[in-house]
């Protein structure tokens, strides 16, 4: 194929392809070398039997190490169990999430915590809370008539 392309155009396409490679390299490095990949919980669970399945039979916060915590949270139309979590500043919290009914979202405004929580899967995401204050937790996937009320607070002291 004979294609008459302007030199600038070739350069432009080259820049496009180079950008693509740079994006992929950075994303790949972050995901696989730095473990900064997106929440991708692969464990399934019987959403009908959460009350009798660990760890969701005892939702709540527990300490797992030196200022390290695990928060087991159940999402259900239209609330979070437990609600109003309190943690000390500088704590690293691993959120272990699942849904009891439909698809919800778990977002902590002002942080990078954002995960989809459909029924049947255990979703995990970790966040370090350095600054004290009140963090708004909300459902960001439309889940019904009370969706706008589905929120809670994490207090960092």
């Amino acid at each position: 194929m004979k294609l008459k392309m302007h030199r600038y155009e070739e350069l432009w396409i080259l820049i496009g392809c180079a950008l693509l490679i740079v994006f992929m390299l950075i994303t790949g490095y972050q995901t696989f070398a730095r473990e900064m990949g997106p929440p991708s919980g692969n464990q399934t669970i019987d959403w009908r039997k959460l009350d009798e399945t660990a760890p969701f039979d005892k939702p709540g916060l527990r300490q797992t190490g030196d200022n390290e915590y695990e928060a087991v949270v159940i999402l259900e139309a239209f609330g979070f169990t437990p609600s109003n979590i309190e943690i000390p500043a500088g704590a690293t919290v691993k959120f272990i999430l699942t849904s009891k009914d439909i698809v919800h979202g778990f977002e902590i405004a002002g942080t990078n915590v954002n995960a989809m929580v459909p029924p049947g899967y255990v979703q995990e995401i970790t966040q370090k809370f350095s600054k004290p204050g009140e963090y708004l937790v909300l459902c960001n996937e439309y889940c019904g008539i009370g969706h706008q009320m589905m929120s809670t607070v994490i207090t960092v002291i």
Partner: protein
Amino acid sequence: METTKLQLLKDKANRAMGINRQDALFSKTYMFIAFVALLLGGILGLTQGLEKAGILTLPDWLTYYQVLTAHGFLLVIVLTAFFTIGYFYAGLSHTLGGLLPKVRKMAWIGFALKIIGFPLVVVPVLSNDATVLYTFYPPMAASPWFYIGLVFIVLGVWMCAFGAFVQVASWRKRNKGQHLPILAFFATGVFVLLFFGSLGVTTEVLTIIPWAFGWTDTINVMVSRTLFWSFAHTLVNIWYLTAASAWYVIVPKVIGGRRFSDVLTRFVIIALVITNIPGGFHHQIIDPGITQAIKFMHVFMSLVIAVPSMMTAYAMFSVFERRGRELGGRGLVGWFKKMPWGDVRFLAPFIAMAAFIPGGAGGIVQSTNQLNQVVHNTMWVVGHFHLTVGTTVMLTFFGISYWLIPYISKRVLTPKINKLGVITTIVWTVGMALMSISMHTVGLLGAPRRTSYTTYGDSATAASWDPYIIILAIGGTLLMVGVILQAYAVFHLMFRAPKGETEFPIAEVEENASETPYWTERWGRTIFLMLILIVMAYVVPLVDMIVNAPPGSPPFRTW
């Protein structure tokens, strides 16, 4: 032989005398419905914006989420589908010698199927039995009739796609060895994507229907989501490809220039068709049940579309510069001033293209894992698609309407309506800029999308979002003015403007253009490559979701 000659004669007559009455009626009907949908969808959009800002309280019988469902459905399904089909059918009629009688029949059957589907979708939405938004993620379940309506609409779209295929195949038979006219080439790409892209969502809906009726007990939530996005993302790119067809083919003629390299244009279309459907996964970057390796591969599948988009940007500015210099523009930017800024047929699509620079850039960054996690399901995403669909695609469609509607109505665009169009374009641009910038910003701060007015229990964080939501509502109000002006212009051009002939503007290639190789016409190969990519993208994650599925979900009604 005789029939071939007759057809050739018809081709000539068609070009010389404008569109025949029957083909015109078809496109006119589609355009009419498209802009009625814009009007209704716009009113609902404003209602929603005012409610979200806490300015308007809705009555008991109408919820925010009902309004949102209808707004999305009218604008992203009805308006875009009807405009795309009406526009490309007029293009097929014009460039391929008039629609064949059987194609016209198929297209009208498609129309009838869609019209049957509408009430089935709309009635449950109005009666609050389908307040599931246009994404209808299971296990939320609407009235089964809602999904049956969707099936009719998809079948209607398919009939139109098949009609286009028949038309194109017949033309190719009659014109062996020739290249399909460029606009028909775009149309083929769009209809190929419409058909193959909607196979996934059709499968989803066909599993939902027996479940919504209660004939089957449970549904696989993640499979449904994945099938939905395989379609919904493709749909976005169908609009983009439709808009791009006007940029490559129509706009150069409007400014009196010639179009960019034919080979590269066709290459861009083929690249978009092949790489499109797997892009849907970037809507599921923070979903469980999909491994990070698969997600990484899909970041590539989403980003790769940036390459043809960048080629398009280059092509457009190259065409503008060449024409500007022909008109005597000098220096680095002198050519830019020579563009017909007062001509709405140029101004609207130009702003559309310009908006695609931040729109496309935003799309690229939000497809990467990190930023996606920050903005997923926030108002940022809403800002993104109001910039891309609401501005880039819509302004291109508006620009098209100022010559297409007169063309199919055998009327002319008067200077007065042109001026009105320029005003509409400016109002729209300002409104969308206010709305989109405030949405992007407030989304970055964490405000969720698809959420009615709320203070989240008087949260200080939520209160800090309020000023942006007010700007959003102001932008929305300006857009409502834009919608009314645009709808007025369309109906005026359709029924009231002075009678006369309007040209269907199709630019020629450069005189010294290199010849287009014939491989570009091998649609079988293009579709084959597309299917290979779809299989590569979807087989592993879908099999994983099915084989390792958690217990399925029964229908839920939470509204």
